[in-house]
Structures are given as C-alpha cells and as structure tokens.
C-alpha cells in the first residue's frame, strides 16, 4: 500500500502519512458502512486520494518535497480504479525495493530504508535492532531520502539488461539482514532474532515478485534454513552454541523441507548462483544427523563451485574447515595458511577462531591458545568473545 501510494506522491514521508490517514478513515467509515468488498483496494485508493489532496493543497510547497519518480501520473484515472491498483501493487512494491536497495546508497542506508519502507518496521525498532541511537538511525534515513531525491535515484524496476546485477544488489541486502539476524557483529546477544522474521518475509516477497530469477529462490531457501535454527543458536543465558553442538531435533523440519524444494527447483533451472550454492551447503548441514556424520566431501565440492562464482577469502576459509573434516586438521591448516600468506582476513576473527580449533584438533595447544587470544581480541560480539574465552580456558587447564 505504501509502495502504491509512493508512486503517486513521489515522496516517502507524504505517502506514509497518507497511509496512516487511510487507516483512520477506514475505522470510521467501515464502522458506519460495513467492510467494503475489497478492503485492501479501498485502503490503497483512500491513501492515494489523501496523498493527492495533500499534494494539491501543497502545490506551492511541492518544490520542497523530495521527488521519487519523474513522470507525472495521470491522477484522476489512477485514483479511481481500485481493481487495477490491486494488480499493480506487486510492481510498486518491487519498485520500492529496487529504490531502497540501489547500490548508489550506503550499505547501512539500504538496510535501514528497506526495513523502514519495505518491511514497515518503526524507526525505533530498527534502531534497536542495529543497536544505534534512534537519532542516528533517523538521520541515516533522512540523509538517504535526500540523496534519493537530489541524485534522482529512480523508483522503478531496472531495465532487463541491468536486472540481474540489481537483483543481486537486493539479494545482498537481504543476505546481510539474514546473517545479521543470526550473528550481530557488535552486540551483546548473539541472536538478533528480531531481524529473522522481516528478512525471511523479504526473501519470500522477492521470490514471489521475481519468480523467474533463480537466485531469489536460493536466497529464500538460505533464509529458511537460517530461520529453522533460530531456537538452537544460544542457550538460556544467551551463550553461543556452535552448529556442531546445536540440538538438531529442534531445527524446524517444515522450513528445511520448503528450502529443499526451492533448492531443487533452482538447481534444475540452470547453473546455480552464490545464494543457491550457500543454501545447498546449509541444507546438507540441516540433514546431517551430527557434525561428524555430515557429508563433508559434498560440502567441499559445493564450496569449489561457490568459489568459481564468488571467489572470496571467506569462502576459502569455510572450505578449509570442510577440508579438515574430509582429510585431517593439518590439511585444513595448510589451506588457512595459504589464505594468511595472501595477506587476507588478518583482522577477521573467524579465521583465527577456525585456526585455533584446527590447531587444537591437531594436538598443537600452545599455538591454538595464541590463535584464540587473537580471535578474542578481534571479535566485537560479547557472546562470541565469551565462547572463545571458554575454549581458551579449556586449553589452559
């Protein structure tokens, strides 16, 4: 509804106000006349009328309003056709998503805009999710909206030749939300469960709106599998539980089954992209009876594929851990040393944590302790730091 109204107002703030007005009006009018046949369309039409009236009133002020789209809509026609509007809402929503996830905006701004305007989460709640003061988040949103207006970031679905790249930009935002939802890089608590629901909803929405893009299915599968483990990542005191120690019986089987169907669909449609491959890896973990009984050779194969489409040192690191399970810890350490000698990931706490783990398994406790200390010094998350300190204490005992 907000998306449909923005198309008319070309102004996020005005659209929001108009939508709120429409709900108030609905309460009065529906009580009096009964609920209309198509409540959604009724609300959207009312919100748009409100917005158009406000625009007409404030015509002189309009130069001050941030404009989101170029062409002037045909007003009367637009406002009087609820049936058509309902059909056009998915397109409007897609336009809004592409606008909020435009790569010309800063990463934090994309996340905040998407949560605020696509997911409809209140500014206070977003500030809480990202552990920033409300004023900081509000300023971030204002700055981003100013850039949207001043630089002319379009409220439109990108043309076919650019669509793939831009869908990737949207998926990257969702991926960030999904990963932030299960590990906050700087927070006290490991699980930002609050972000889990909206990021899953967003992945679902995008997959519904762009079903022909295979990676949207991969992303949804990945979000589902992450979500399926939401209750097992921390214990009652909020301490981290590693994947290998999690109670696998409490992973949500329905979500895993849905993810599997999506992965199979995506794999059948052609060569998989990075999100589908990550989902496939997550799915293998989801089906393994235990950490030891995981199909590690298959995971190494998938990481090899992932490396081809998305060559990053973090993927190399994950692959190294999988290699250590297929062969032995020393083989994994050789891989990690290769990443280190390339001068990558030196400041990445998970590299040192993984290395410490492999050194422990390889029976090299002194070196392992050094790596744990380095990882502890680098990590910003309190729950993770406590977990690592616990491992270090075990070694030193």
């Amino acid at each position, binding site marked *: 509804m907000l998306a449909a109204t923005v198309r008319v107002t070309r102004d996020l703030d005005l659209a929001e106000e108009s939508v709120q007005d429409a709900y108030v009006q609905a309460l009065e009018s529906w009580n009096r006349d009964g609920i209309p046949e198509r409540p959604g369309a009724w609300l959207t039409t009312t919100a748009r009328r409100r917005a158009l009236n406000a625009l007409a009133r404030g015509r002189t002020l309009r130069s001050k309003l941030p404009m989101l789209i170029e062409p002037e809509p045909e007003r009367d026609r637009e406002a009087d056709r609820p049936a058509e509007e309902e059909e056009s809402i998915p397109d409007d929503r897609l336009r809004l998503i592409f606008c909020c996830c435009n790569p*010309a905006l800063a990463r934090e701004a994309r996340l905040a805009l998407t949560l605020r305007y696509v997911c409809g989460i209140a500014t206070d709640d977003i500030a809480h999710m990202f552990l920033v003061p409300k004023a900081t988040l509000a300023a971030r949103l204002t700055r981003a909206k100013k850039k949207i207006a001043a*630089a002319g970031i379009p409220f439109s679905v*990108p043309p076919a030749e*650019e669509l793939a790249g831009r869908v990737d930009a949207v998926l990257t935002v969702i991926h960030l939300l999904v990963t932030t939802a299960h590990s906050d890089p700087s927070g006290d608590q490991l699980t930002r469960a609050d972000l889990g629901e909206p990021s899953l909803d967003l992945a679902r929405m995008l997959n519904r709106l762009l079903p022909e893009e295979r990676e949207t299915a991969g992303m949804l599968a990945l979000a589902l599998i992450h979500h399926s483990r939401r209750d097992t990542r921390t214990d009652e005191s909020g301490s981290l539980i590693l994947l290998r120690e999690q109670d696998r019986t409490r992973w949500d089987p329905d979500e895993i089954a849905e993810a599997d169907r999506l992965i199979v669909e995506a794999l059948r449609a052609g060569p998989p992209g990075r999100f589908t491959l990550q989902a496939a890896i997550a799915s293998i973990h989801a089906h393994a009876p235990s950490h030891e009984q995981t199909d590690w050779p298959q995971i190494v194969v998938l990481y090899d594929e992932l490396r081809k489409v998305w060559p990053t040192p973090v993927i190399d690191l994950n692959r190294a851990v999988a290699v250590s399970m297929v062969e032995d810890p020393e083989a994994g350490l050789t891989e990690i040393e290769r990443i280190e000698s390339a001068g990558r990931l030196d400041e990445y706490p998970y590299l040192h944590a993984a290395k410490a783990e492999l050194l422990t398994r390889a029976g090299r406790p002194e070196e392992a302790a050094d790596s744990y200390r380095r990882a502890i010094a680098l990590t910003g998350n309190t729950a993770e730091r406590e977990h690592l300190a616990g491992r270090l204490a075990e070694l030193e005992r």
Partner: protein
Amino acid sequence: MPQYAVIIYERVPVPELPPEIMEAHGALPDRIAEAGGRVIAGLAVGPGSTATAIRDELITDGPFVETKEEMGGLFIIEARDLDHAISLAKMTPIAEGGVDVRPLTGFEVLEDG
C-alpha cells in the same frame, strides 16, 4: 531530463593518456546519445603539476587536494535518472582510475555581450 556531472579521476596525467583513450573520449558523445542520454559539455584540465592552490592569502604550488588519482576533467550529461546516468558514466574511457557521478545543481555559461 536531469543533469549530472561525471568527474574523471585518472592516475595517468592527461597529456600522457594513451591515444586509444583519447579517441574513445572523442566517440563518447555519440555512444551516450545512442544509449538515450546526451552530453551537454565536456571540460579537460591540465595536470596537478600545473595547478596553483589558493587558501585564503596563501598561494601554493600544486592542486588543492593531493590524491593519487587526479581530477582530469568532467563532462555534463543528461540522463533519465541516476541509474541511467551511472550506465552512461560507465562508458567513460579510463586508463587507471574512475569517475564520480553527481547531480548537477547549477550550470551557467556566460556569453560575451
């Protein structure tokens, strides 16, 4: 259509740019027009070694801001929106460096009376 400035930053000083880059610059307006945009103006400036910076009363040799990539020039384009402007700016021939795309907020050419 809105206007944008595409500001070019090059590690290679303009006089030393390879001939194919210079040729590509010549062909740029046509390529941009084919893609539905329009070049309105283009400017090239001398290298930073020829620049003189003025801070209040202080006059110093060299550019105001010293960077590895020097501002080598800019052109002004018309585009539908930022996405379109970015796709046009991507066509800029660059030896070693990149461009900055900014919305144009004013542009005036004063002609001789």
